[in-house]
């Protein structure tokens, strides 16, 4: 049975609205697998990628996840970008007891035994970014602008609480939501300008998602919103998004991530070189979710080697505590809550579409599954090691909430 290749599923959108972001992740996974195979595979076996296209269609994602696990019998799946994708495949992974590595920053409030969250949770991205603006730029007024869906809503909820706790007046926070793919930003940008002209230093915290960003930044540039006056810090804008337009008028606007292509470390240089080589173009950029896949894949490889098998239960046990280098010179560790440690970097947009790191956390920040700034989840803890072995352990009642309590 141990003969033949080990199969790995790649579950990304190659068409539809999300293809724009996710296609790259498919490519990077194929590259990583190719590299691993050249280095001898795992457990002496080759890895075989199985690629499917979920076509930005979430029921289809669940269907294809099931098919990957049941028909193709993959041992681990790397995939999804949106939360709804993850939410829709999650029951499948739980039911069939397989592994999902999820590479994108998300709203938190989740920890599942079969899922490994290699992207940032809000405490690894949003909170440090706000801290930076408050301390370094002296921002007192806040525009929280986001696309109207769960990630921005949750993040903004957390941020709002955080800002109120930090003494910001309610009047000094403006929250604005726009539909997916919003393309006419004239009114909103001018509202931001108006809000910003009311005196104290103002910044925009943007959780605007995907396609909407290019027109948003173009409008910012055209209405002359300069970073020196009203900086915009974004959590969903990376190198990939910036490659769609001329960033010269936007120099100085910010993004908070755990990785930037411009970080100069040997690992990163090697990674970028390999990527350019693999994709056959020097123009292609790297970004944060790619690094997350890089980390996640290496962690899985380590765990499988350690466990000596690809069996899901064994890997789940073995992977907690696994440490692999990230691309920014630190070490990523898989925590018991299935999130990882990450550095937080704040970068300013440069005219070449890259980010210049202007600030970074001194230590790695451990990912927090349950936000401390939401009352209901402040008491929750996730720990997938014995004796707790629970995704939502209530530290007050000392019980494991939800289905596991019943199932176990």
């Amino acid at each position: 049975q141990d003969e033949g290749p080990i199969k790995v599923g790649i579950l990304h959108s190659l068409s539809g609205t999300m293809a724009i972001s996710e296609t790259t992740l498919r490519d990077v996974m194929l590259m990583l697998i190719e590299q691993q195979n050249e280095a001898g595979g795992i457990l002496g076996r080759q890895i075989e990628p199985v690629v499917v296209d979920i076509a930005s269609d979430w029921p289809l994602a669940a269907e294809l996840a099931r098919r990957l696990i049941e028909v193709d019998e993959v041992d681990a799946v790397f995939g999804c970008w949106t939360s709804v994708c993850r939410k829709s495949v999650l029951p499948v992974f739980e039911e069939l007891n397989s592994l999902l590595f999820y590479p994108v920053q998300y709203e938190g409030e989740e920890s599942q035994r079969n899922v490994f969250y290699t992207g940032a949770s809000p405490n690894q991205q949003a909170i440090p970014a706000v801290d930076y603006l408050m301390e370094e730029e002296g921002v007192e007024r806040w525009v929280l602008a986001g696309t109207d869906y769960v990630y921005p809503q949750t993040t903004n909820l957390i941020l709002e609480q955080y800002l109120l706790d930090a003494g910001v007046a309610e009047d000094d926070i403006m929250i604005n939501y726009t539909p997916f793919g919003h393309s006419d930003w004239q009114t909103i940008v001018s509202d931001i300008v108006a809000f910003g002209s009311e005196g104290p230093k103002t910044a925009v915290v943007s959780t605007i998602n995907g396609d909407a960003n290019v027109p948003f930044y173009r409008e910012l540039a055209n209405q002359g919103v300069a970073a020196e006056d009203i900086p915009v810090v974004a959590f969903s804008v990376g190198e990939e998004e910036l490659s769609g337009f001329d960033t010269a008028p936007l120099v100085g606007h910010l993004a908070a991530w755990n990785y930037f292509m411009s970080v100069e470390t040997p690992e990163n240089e090697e990674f970028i070189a390999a990527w350019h080589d693999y994709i056959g173009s020097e123009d292609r950029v790297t970004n944060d979710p790619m690094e997350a896949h890089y980390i996640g894949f290496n962690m899985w490889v380590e765990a499988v080697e350690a466990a000596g098998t690809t069996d899901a239960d064994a890997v789940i046990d073995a992977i907690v505590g696994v440490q692999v280098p990230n691309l920014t010179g630190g070490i990523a560790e898989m925590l018991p809550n299935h999130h990882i440690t990450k550095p937080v970097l704040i970068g300013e947009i440069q005219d070449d579409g890259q980010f210049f790191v202007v600030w970074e956390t001194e230590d790695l920040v451990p990912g927090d599954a349950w936000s401390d700034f939401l009352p209901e989840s402040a008491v929750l803890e996730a720990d997938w090691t014995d004796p707790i072995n629970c995704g939502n352990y209530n530290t007050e009642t000392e019980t494991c909430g939800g289905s596991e309590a019943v199932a176990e």
Partner: protein
Amino acid sequence: MGSLNRFGRPFLALIFIALAALAAPSAKAQSVAEIVPQMYDASLGDLRDAVAALVATGEDAALPILQALGAGNLYEADNGGIFIQTGRNQYEDALTGAEADLDVTGDLSTIRINNSLRRDIAAAVGSLTLMSENPATRRAAAAQMFSTADPANIELLDQALAEEDNPGVRTVMEQARAAAMLRADISEEDFAAAVAVIAARGDRQALGILNANLANASEAERVNIEAGISRINQSLQLWGIGQNVWYGVSLGSVLLLAAIGLAITFGVMGVINMAHGEMVMIGAYVTFFVQEIIRTTNPGLFDYSLAIAIPMAFAVTGLIGIAIERGIIRWLYGRPLETLLATWGLSLIIQQGVRTIFGATNREVGNPSWMSGAFELGGLAITWNRMWIVVFALVVFALLLLVLNKTPLGLQMRAVTQNRRMASAMGIRTPWVDAMTFGLGSGVAGLAGVALSQIDNVSPNLGQSYIIDSFMVVVFGGVGNLWGTLVGALTLGVANKFLEPYAGAVLAKILILVLIILFIQRRPRGLFALKGRAVEA
């Protein structure tokens, strides 16, 4: 650097004294020649010190270095040298002015700065250029000082005002002085005068300054400021309505552009053209392609890239449209609903085709300089790209109207789509007319793509995001009526922009859809409904 300004050294010295307050308390004065080498491989903190030190030197040579650093044109070489970029691949030594020899220096890389440093530099450069010979530069410097509003600048501004004879620049300087005064410890009359100056300016920035001073003003001053604020707010409100109309018109023009090709293929020909969005998308990719070629072969032509892309996009999408008509649509006349199925299939194929060729990610399409930035028209801020898009949309509309109503081809197009068999019996070459009509509709869609590439993503999904709105516009306006499409697009645009501030972008969009549904109940054949026997079966 010869004479830096009109007043020479004594004046400069004065500036530097004034700026000393702003500069970090450095232990002892250094010379530019000493400071510059320290900028090599410096941390942001070190750079900040260096900037302060440079300002403190009082040397002429400091200004170009500061300007270069602010603009991201200051480079460090592997060998520790510091260079200023003077042109494409041209660098000169910041201290000696010698041309850089890359063999000696090694690779050059930009010295990166952050926002707060950028602000410091802007303030410093502002002060240093306040006496420049060029009025535009002086004006910019004054404007910079207005936003910095630093009391330390007051003396400097007084000096400059004494010499200033350009009335425009004077006003800005006075405003800058007033802004700075508000922060200083001044008498009540002076305060009132300053508030008046700023309130007279009447824009958002003025409002910002007044608001900022509200918090730490005395009781009497507060009354003054509040009066100023309400005056500004009043005028802003009025202008706000105009601004909203403009936003609406500009949104409407985008809708018009997106829809107008469909008004032909769907409105005139009756083909439920689900591949319309893909034609728009291809138009955008043609723009990308044209710009890409220009970038690699002749960057000087970049400002003309759109002028080149417009006919190219029209030709490319028009030809594709003709090919589609000849290959597929022509078999489907008489079964209009089937065109939905075929063109849907086509749109899938085209999208994936573009994704395969150009990749799934966004492609970079730049704005030529004349499409960038904004200008003020009274209290209206109008961005150039929106403004040109409005003009472009109207021109395309007018041309199309002309073609459809005033040329034999237009007449034949309408005749063919109303009764293909009879048109043929009248001697009209229906296959040719069909191909031309579909080609024209597709070509116009391609033109829309050129315009949309200037405000939106250029990705394989571009078309999808406009197709629904396009159908809404055409149907709302009344199928088969070009004027309807125009009025429909503008109405929806303006309505949207008036709802948005109250309801938010999401609800505004929902409300617009509900309004369309309700409107169609009142006018079941759209805004510009055709009436009479001719249409009622």
